[in-house]
């Protein structure tokens, strides 16, 4: 097990190197450069060349990549040109909010998705099942940025229950309750699609498991229905649900890009959008590398958890 974890961690290095090369190349391929973005309508070739030289962007691509790589190995992510501060400071400020948002969405999705899935499976063809299928279909097929705006219109503007945007109230805010209050709408919006996916999967897996022989044996032993479903069926279904949670993590972090924009959540997703628009290559690199690390780590965790749940699965 330990050897497996170490091997997986070592495999991260080529993955991250590959990602950083791809990001560097893509940023180089899209037309327009940071100097142009900064100077706007004042971007004369002369001004652009001068600013590029001052920003150190006049060196060849390969040389810039290795300078970046050398710096990052020493823990220096470079300085963002669009924000005029060290990339690492910006990521440090942004990472927490994104993890909080994505983490809450996943918990929301896992909790409600599994409950809905189990209930629907147990009451197959009942009204709960129909209702569930209908709601899930809507949840999966509604674009979440639109849903977010609708939630804001209803719950914030009309009803005034939740704040419209941001992570804390600007005046006198910052307490735990304040953060949670700001978190609910974006987390729910971001988690809706994942909830649908998890619910569907839970339902079908549970249905499959409930037809297995050992469930019949459990019932024959006279166990309560509750115990049959939770201890026997659900725990077995979980083995196939957990890896999907890992995949959904990737989608949720990706979805954070636009949900953070709609709700002005101060996270990494919104940072990346701005960084790409301003061609801030070091900021894009830093953000993507950090997200990649998170994604790889979460998938590793999922594999380990799966192994713990079912030791027959090779880790």
């Amino acid at each position: 097990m330990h050897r497996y974890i170490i091997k997986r961690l070592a495999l991260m290095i080529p993955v991250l190197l590959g990602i950083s090369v791809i990001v560097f190349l893509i940023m180089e391929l899209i037309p327009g450069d940071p100097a142009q973005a900064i100077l706007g309508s004042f971007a004369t070739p002369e001004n652009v060349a001068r600013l590029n030289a001052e920003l150190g962007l006049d060196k060849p691509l390969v040389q810039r990549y290795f300078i970046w790589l050398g710096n990052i190995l020493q823990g220096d992510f470079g300085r963002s040109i669009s924000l005029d501060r060290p990339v690492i400071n910006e990521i440090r400020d942004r990472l927490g909010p994104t993890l909080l948002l994505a983490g809450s969405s996943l918990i929301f999705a896992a909790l409600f998705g599994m409950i809905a899935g189990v209930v629907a499976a147990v009451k197959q063809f009942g009204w709960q099942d129909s209702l569930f299928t209908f709601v899930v279909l809507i949840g999966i097929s509604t674009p979440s940025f639109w849903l977010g705006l609708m939630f804001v219109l209803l719950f914030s503007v009309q009803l005034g229950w939740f704040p419209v945007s941001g992570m804390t109230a600007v005046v006198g805010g910052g307490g735990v309750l304040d953060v949670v209050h700001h978190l609910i709408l974006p987390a729910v919006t971001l988690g809706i699609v994942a909830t649908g996916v998890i619910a569907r999967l839970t339902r079908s897996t549970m249905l499959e498991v409930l037809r297995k022989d050992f469930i019949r044996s459990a019932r024959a032993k006279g166990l309560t229905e509750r115990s049959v479903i939770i201890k026997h069926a659900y725990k077995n279904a979980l083995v196939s649900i957990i890896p999907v949670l890992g995949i959904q993590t990737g989608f949720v972090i990706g979805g954070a890009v636009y949900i953070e924009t709609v709700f002005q959540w101060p996270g990494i997703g919104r940072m990346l959008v701005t960084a790409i628009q301003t061609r801030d290559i070091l900021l894009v690199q830093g953000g993507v590398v950090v997200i990649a690390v998170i994604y790889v780590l979460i998938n590793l965790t999922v594999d380990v958890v799966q192994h713990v749940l079912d030791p027959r699965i090779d880790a």
Partner: protein
Amino acid sequence: MFKRVLVVATAFLVVSSLLFASGSGEQGGGSAKPTTLVVGQIAEPKALDPHTVTAVNDFRILVNIYEGLVQFKDGSLDVEPALATDWDISDDGLVYTFHLRKGVNFQDGTPFNAEAVKFNFDRMLKDDHPYHNTGPFPLAFFFSSIKETTVVDDSTVRFTLSQPYAPLLSNLAYPTGLLVSPAAVKKFGTEYGRHPVGTGPFRFVKWESNVQVLVEKNPDYWGTPAGVDQVVFRPITDGNTRVTEMLSGGLDLMVEVPPDSLQVFENNNKFQVYEQAGPHVWFLILNMKEKPFSSKEMRQAVNYAVNKKALVDNVLQGTAEVADSPIPPAFDWAYNDSLRPYPYDPEKAKQLIAQAGYDGTPITFYVTQGGSGMLDPVPMATAIQADLAAVGLNVKIETYEWNTFLGKVNPGLEGKADMAEMAWMTNDPDTLPFLTLRTAAFPEEGGFNSGYYSNPEVDKLLEQARQATDQATRARLYKQVQAIVHDDAPWLFVANWKQNAVSTARVQNFKLQPSFLLELGSVTKQ
């Protein structure tokens, strides 16, 4: 199992929220509640160092913390004294001597004097200045005509120019001319942009990245004290989110209201809507080097063919006015008000097109998806395309993302396109024609004349206007330029944007300025 998940989930929420909780209610502690004005900005500022930034979004904060030697008059683009009480200009236009206001201190307590002024300009302009490395300074070329800054005495400073440059005064009034505290630059170095110190009515308190910039009333301000105790600038990049924040009471004031949402506020007496035309021109560059727009008839024909009134009223929903020349009316002192926009006259356009002998070759039209000052570029382009189709012109649209678009348009349209959208916001009537309409401003010369307009008369007039130090002379020359350019029609003149803002009814004394800057010193809140 469910219980366990629930416990883990709750624990996660509580612990992580605690991590982000920052000593709640830190501002609510005082006995008298301070008046706080919350302003919805369009983006996170880059830095609060006036010399390193270029975006209006950043300027809107800066003008409240800092002041320059001169400033734009209230409601005008004419300059008036600020930290300088008056100035003399030598007859040859080469020496500007400024007399500084006495007894003014920066917000860190250090004195504002001639040494401080010299430090500011030398930092931007001299490569060997010890603090030049706190840049780069992208707009330093505004002052590139300054050869030397001399301290005459503690309250007199002199600029010696390498050549006469009349726009210098407006450039000094522009945010790039705001003055920073030398002591603070020395103390914070490259991090100065996050620790700004100026002389203005508000002083900096804190900047929480992506959440807010907080400034408070400067108790030692030399002028009229600010009308509110604190101002919070919140970055809200999404226009619709800004509107919903405003509607739900999260903001006191917001800028750049999307045209679609303006009605909502106009019909509600809890809000007040502000509009102000500014120094903005939205136009199409016509490629004069190649057919069909090498012909003046064709260029005038498209100006007649497009229904600009319908564009500003319907596509832009009244957030702009019809333009008629390269100098917008906001420059009241230099604008030629005898000009009239080309009327909408498709018959006349058809007649001119026939005269020009247009052979039906498709016309390539570069369009951007959005960008600084570009308003609603895609719907505008399709409306223009339809108007031109109605007079028999076959226009093909090519759409690009803003930076890509600039990369295609700025090097010149030759061999690529016949028309391109463009918009400029400037601070002096000189800027736009000087950079975009002179022969010496062809792209290969490093200018923005992407359509290759060349008229020796215009070249001469613009050069003279730059040399003249007397405003009346400059105004006369610019009016001549406008008349000639209007007739030559190197562009399809379309719109002058009106900046807008919305405040709650509790906000008083707020005014938008033609400079597009956001002066909050006199604003009060009930």
